[in-house]
């Protein structure tokens, strides 16, 4: 019996995955970030599912896609058997990636604030300069009151959003070519567009892994992508603006507030904050 590529025998899974993600989002009950004693809920279960399905899917797609050949770069796999294997690996990752991405997209449609918190603000350049200047040991800089996501992350998000969108649109058409007659001219546009978007995604992915998992300063956040929580002290230092949004007050200030005394508003700069 003729062996078939998963892209052929299970094409329907590619159509099913986005709808399954949308349906799952509709049925998901989300939790907003909240301060719980000495820790802060940063990522609820849905966020972690979104992140890891999208992230692992992206990783496997990049590895198998690059092995199959990207744009003008030669393929790393040469023979028919290894091409089949890589295409089947690519297929599995496509299904996981589509589920995760559409799960995120539908969740975002339900709560637009989750989209807004990823978008850069007018502080993007200034905060990023101070944040990384401080990290590089420049004493004149102070830690800006970053929100839940650093301004630098918010700028990178735009690249991830654009590359993901192009990859999905072009990828869906490439899969459609397994089930219907897609015009050759369209495929001739979609294939290089898919590859170029994949290169942009690779750039984002490498930077993201380095800054979010490899750098020791990011390890608390990395852990929170498994546990959901970050320490309050960490949040005070790295995400003062976010804690402000969550209504956090230092204990003495909170006590004073309870006593009905006037509390001086916090500086928008928060340059005095220390963990």
């Amino acid at each position, binding site marked *: 019996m*003729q062996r078939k590529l998963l892209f052929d025998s299970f094409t329907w899974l590619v159509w099913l995955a986005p*709808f399954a993600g*949308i349906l799952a989002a*509709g049925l998901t009950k989300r939790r907003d970030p909240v301060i719980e004693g000495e820790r802060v809920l940063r990522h609820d279960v849905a966020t972690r599912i979104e992140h890891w399905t999208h992230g692992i899917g992206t990783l496997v797609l990049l590895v198998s896609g690059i092995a199959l050949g990207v744009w003008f770069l030669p393929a790393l796999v040469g023979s028919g058997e290894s091409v089949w294997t890589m295409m089947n690996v690519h297929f599995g990752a496509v299904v996981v990636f589509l589920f995760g991405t559409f799960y995120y997209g539908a969740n975002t449609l*339900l709560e637009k*604030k989750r989209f807004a918190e990823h978008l850069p*603000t*007018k502080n993007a350049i200034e905060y990023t300069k101070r944040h990384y200047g401080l990290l590089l040991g420049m004493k004149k800089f102070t830690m800006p009151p970053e929100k839940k996501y650093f301004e630098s992350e918010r700028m990178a998000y735009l690249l991830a959003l654009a590359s993901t969108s192009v990859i999905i649109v072009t990828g869906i058409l490439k899969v459609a070519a*397994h089930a219907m007659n897609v015009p050759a001219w369209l495929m001739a546009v979609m294939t290089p567009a898919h590859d170029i978007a994949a290169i942009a995604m690779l750039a984002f992915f490498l930077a993201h892994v380095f800054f979010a998992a490899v750098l020791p300063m990011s390890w608390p956040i990395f852990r929170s992508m498994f546990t959901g929580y970050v320490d309050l002290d960490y949040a005070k230092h790295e995400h003062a603006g976010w804690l402000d949004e969550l209504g956090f007050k230092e204990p003495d200030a909170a006590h004073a507030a309870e006593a009905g005394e006037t509390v001086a508003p916090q500086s928008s700069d928060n340059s005095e904050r220390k963990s």
Partner: protein
Amino acid sequence: MVDNNTNPAEPEVSADQKGLSRRQFLIGFGGLGVGLALGGIFGGAFLLSDEVIAIQASGGWLLVDTKKCSGCTSCMMACSLAHHGETNMSLSRIQITQDPFGKFPDDISIAQCRQCPYPSCVEACPTGAMHVDKVTGVRTVDVAKCIGCERCVNACPFTPSRALWNFEEKHSQKCDLCKDSPFWDEDGGPDGKRACEEVCSMGAIKFTRELPVQSEDGYETDLRTGTAWDTLGFGGSPKSGGALG
């Protein structure tokens, strides 16, 4: 600056207010899609399978007589030259194989595409790149659609495979009866000329419009009887027909 207090979570509009909340819509939309995808699988089982859909016959076939072949490989060079503009035997769609230990008539054989009535290469192609040309019926490759999975190469029932891997341009290719031969100043295809047939000095390759009778191993034809071969003194022309004559 984004302010969550001024941009609260999207309100869950009740069904009474707007008829349908966004969450209800997404649940319905997602559920409908899941239903259609799953329903398509079960529904597809009731559709006609590809096997019962008739495939157009080729507009012609190449006949070969390996007993006439001298192994000069002119056909291979002509094929490569007509299609690719270079004499590279690895790019030829017709192949001459020689067994240095074999004796006539088993020392040389010609491997040409049979333009099969039920082409396994076309059936195996996941993208429709390997297809039957609607005008000529020739089984050929649309290189723009080829993804390089080489399924056609593996699917061809003959050895060596008549679907070949173009190692330079990274796509599969096969004999198209010279339908698309950009480096040859002649019209090819079933209604034109075939480069291999034109250059074969032994007359071992001939084009026909009549479907040859195929055995499990393909077909081979006697192109000798009635020619000067009858007088060469081989004790009579080897019999024709059958897989290897």
